[in-house]
C-alpha cells in the first residue's frame, strides 16, 4: 500500500494473560489484521486495517480481545472534527468519491427519541395482552373509499389485491448482490414464518427463493436487473424503486467483484460487470410516466398484485406522495434520510433527505387533506430500531414499516459500515464463498424470527397500555404521542402536542 498519512482508526488490545494463540482471530478477520508470527509463535495485529467489525472479539474463545478507538487526538477544533480531517486525508490519498455503507451516522437529532407514548390510567382501562386478544394484522394495498354491502350482508365491492401482514413490519429492499444469498434466504424464510414480507431489492429473485414467493415483494428499479415476466408474476407484490433514503437522487451500484456467477445469472448481466442503476428511471421523467409504469406492471401481473412506489424522503415528499397515489400506486413507501444501504457516496448519505418522522407526518396530513389517505397505504422506512419506533411511526400515520438495518443486526451484522468493501465478516454483505457461509441461514432465521416475535409482544404491551386492542386504532392516532425537547414548529409539523399539554 505504500506510505499512508492515515493513522489507524482502531486499536486491537489483546490481553496476553488470556490469549492462548489459538489463531481463531487470524482465521476470522477478513481484513488481514491478526497474524501469527511463526518465529515468535505469537499472534500480532496490523491495527491500521481494523474496521471494528467485532468478528474476532466475538469468536475469541478466551475473551482476550477488545477493539478500542485509537486514542490519537487531533488538536481540538470545533470546525474540523476528527472525522472531517480523516475523510479529507482519505480523499487526498485516493482522489475518489468517499463511499460509505449503512445509514447516516451523523449526530443529527433522532426524533423518535423525542416522542413519548401514552398509557391509560383510571378513565379507561388498559388491556392485558396476556389475557385479551390483541390484534396487529395489517393490510397493505388500495382500499375503496366505501364498501357496498347488500341488505343480506353480502359484499358487493371488489377489493384490490392486498398484502396481509401479521404485524405492521416488513424487511426492506436488500438485493441479492449487495447481500449474500444466505442473507436473502434468512429474510425469505423469516418472512414466511412470521407471516410478513421481504423485498428482493433490485437484484432479481434467485431461483432457490422462488418457493418463498408468496412472502416476497419484487422490486423494479431503474437498472431493471432481473426483471422479467416470471419475476413480476411470482411475487406477492411489486415495488417500483424511485429512490432510497441513503442516497436520494442516485441509483444503486454493485461493484463487479460482487457480481459472481449466481448474482450475474439472477440479475441477467455478464459475470464480473459493475451493475450500475441509472439515477432516474429513463422511462420516468414525470408523474405521468410513473403512471404508465405502474399500469404496465399491473398489466404484466394481471392486476393481481399491489404496486408500491418507493421514494426517498426529500423536502417536497408530501406533494410527491400525493402524486404517486394519484398515479395509481397502491402503496407508498417512504425511506427516511437515515435509511441504510450497501454503498452510498458519503456526502450524499450524510447530507441529503429529511427525517422519516417528519415525512410520515407530512405525507399523512397531505393525503388526509386530499381525502385519499383511506385509499392508499403508507409504509415508512429508514432507521426503525425497535418496537417503540414502530408504534410511533404508526401513530404518526404509517400503515407499516420496513426494517433493513435492524434485520441485518439480528442476523449478526455489527454495523461496521464497510458493506461496500464486499468482505463482510458476518457473511451478510459479501459474495465471497468462505465468508458467505459464515451466515448459517438456520441460525439467522431463528434470530430474526425471535426479534420480530419479541417486537410483536412489545407492541401488544404498548397497545394494551394505551387501552387499544387493534393496531388499526393506532394509525394516525397522534393523541397517543407527546414531544419533548422539540420546537413548537417541529411539534406542529409532527402534529403532536408537547409533553404536559
Amino acid at each position, binding site marked *: 500500500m505504500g506510505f499512508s498519512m492515515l493513522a489507524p482508526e482502531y486499536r486491537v488490545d489483546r490481553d496476553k494473560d*488470556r490469549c492462548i494463540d*489459538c*489463531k*481463531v482471530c487470524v482465521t476470522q478477520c477478513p481484513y488481514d489484521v491478526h497474524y501469527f508470527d511463526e518465529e515468535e509463535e505469537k499472534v500480532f495485529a496490523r491495527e491500521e486495517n481494523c474496521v471494528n467489525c467485532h468478528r474476532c472479539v466475538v*469468536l475469541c474463545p478466551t475473551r482476550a480481545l477488545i477493539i478500542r478507538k485509537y486514542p490519537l487526538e487531533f488538536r481540538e477544533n470545533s470546525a474540523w472534527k476528527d472525522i472531517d480531517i480523516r475523510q479529507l486525508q482519505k480523499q487526498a490519498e485516493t482522489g475518489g468519491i468517499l463511499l460509505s455503507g449503512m445509514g447516516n451516522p451523523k449526530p443529527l437529532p433522532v426524533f423518535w427519541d423525542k416522542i413519548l407514548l401514552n398509557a391509560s390510567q383510571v378513565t379507561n382501562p388498559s388491556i392485558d395482552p396476556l389475557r385479551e386478544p390483541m390484534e396487529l394484522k395489517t393490510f397493505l394495498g388500495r382500499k375503496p373509499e366505501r364498501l357496498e354491502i347488500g341488505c343480506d350482508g353480502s359484499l358487493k365491492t371488489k377489493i384490490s389485491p392486498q398484502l396481509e401482514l401479521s404485524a405492521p413490519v416488513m424487511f426492506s429492499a436488500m438485493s441479492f448482490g449487495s447481500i449474500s444469498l444466505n442473507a436473502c434466504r434468512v429474510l425469505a424464510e423469516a418472512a414466511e414464518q412470521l407471516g410478513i414480507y421481504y423485498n428482493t431489492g433490485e437484484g432479481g429473485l434467485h431461483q432457490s427463493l422462488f418457493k418463498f414467493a408468496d412472502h416476497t415483494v419484487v422490486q423494479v428499479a431503474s437498472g431493471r436487473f432481473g426483471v422479467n415476466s416470471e419475476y413480476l408474476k411470482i411475487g406477492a407484490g411489486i415495488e417500483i424503486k424511485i429512490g432510497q433514503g441513503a442516497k436520494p437522487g442516485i441509483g444503486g451500484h454493485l461493484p463487479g467483484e460482487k457480481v459472481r456467477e449466481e448474482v450475474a445469472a439472477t440479475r441477467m448481466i455478464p459475470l464480473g460487470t459493475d451493475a450500475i442503476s441509472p439515477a432516474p428511471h429513463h422511462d420516468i421523467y414525470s408523474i405521468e410516466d410513473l403512471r404508465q409504469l405502474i399500469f404496465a406492471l399491473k398489466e404484466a401481473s394481471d392486476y393481481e398484485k399491489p404496486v408500491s412506489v418507493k421514494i426517498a424522503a426529500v423536502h417536497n415528499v408530501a406533494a410527491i406522495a400525493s402524486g404517486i397515489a394519484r398515479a395509481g400506486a397502491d402503496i407508498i413507501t417512504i425511506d427516511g434520510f437515515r435509511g441504510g444501504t450497501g454503498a452510498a457516496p458519503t456526502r450524499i448519505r450524510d447530507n441529503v433527505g429529511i427525517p422519516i418522522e417528519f415525512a410520515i407526518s407530512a405525507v399523512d396530513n397531505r393525503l388526509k387533506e386530499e381525502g385519499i389517505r383511506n385509499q392508499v397505504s403508507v409504509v415508512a422506512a429508514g432507521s426503525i430500531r425497535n418496537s417503540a419506533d414502530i408504534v410511533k411511526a404508526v401513530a404518526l400515520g404509517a400503515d407499516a414499516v420496513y426494517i433493513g438495518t435492524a434485520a441485518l443486526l439480528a442476523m449478526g451484522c455489527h454495523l461496521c459500515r464497510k458493506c461496500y468493501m464486499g468482505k463482510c465478516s458476518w457473511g451478510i454483505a459479501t459474495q465471497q464463498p468462505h465468508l458467505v*457461509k459464515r451466515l*448459517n441461514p438456520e441460525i439467522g432465521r431463528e434470530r430474526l424470527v425471535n426479534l420480530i416475535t419479541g417486537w410483536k409482544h412489545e407492541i401488544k404491551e404498548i397497545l394494551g397500555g394505551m387501552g387499544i386492542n387493534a393496531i388499526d386504532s393506532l394509525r394516525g392516532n397522534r393523541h397517543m404521542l407527546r414531544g419533548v425537547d422539540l420546537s413548537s414548529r417541529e411539534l406542529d409539523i409532527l402534529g403532536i402536542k408537547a409533553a404536559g399539554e
Partner: protein
Amino acid sequence: MKRIYAREEYCVGCRLCEIFCVVGHSKSKDIIKTYKKEPDRPAPRVAVWEDGPLSFAFQCRHCDQPSCVEACITGALSKNEEGTVLCNEDKCVGCWTCITVCPFGAIQREEGEKKKIVKCNLCSGEPEPYCVSHCPNRAIVYEERGVE
C-alpha cells in the same frame, strides 16, 4: 445411534471445535488453564480439514463394523453398548495398527512422550460433545440419523 455430522456448507474454519475438544479432555476443563498451565494437555480428537473455502470438522465415525476394533492387538479398542468406539488407555501399547487400518484416518497419536492413541469418545459423560456445543455456526451437529 447419535453421531456427529459435519455440515461443511456452514463450517467457517475457525477451529474452535479442535480447541474445545482439547479443553473437554483436559484436567481443568478451563480453557486458559488448559492452554497456559497444562503442558501435557491432550491432543484434539477432531481435525478441521480445509481446502480453499471448503472446510469441515472430522472425527471418528464410530463405524457399525469398526476395522480398528477388529485390528486392535490388545483389545484396547472396543465398541460399547451405545455403539461408541472407545479406547482403553491402559491396554493401548502404541502399536499404531488401528491408525493404519482406519479408512478415515480418524485416529491420532497422543502428543508428547505418551505412546498411546487418541480418538474421539463422543465426550462420553457430557450432555453434548464439546466440539458440537462450541461450534459457533452449527457446522457440526450431534443427532440421530438412523442407519447409514
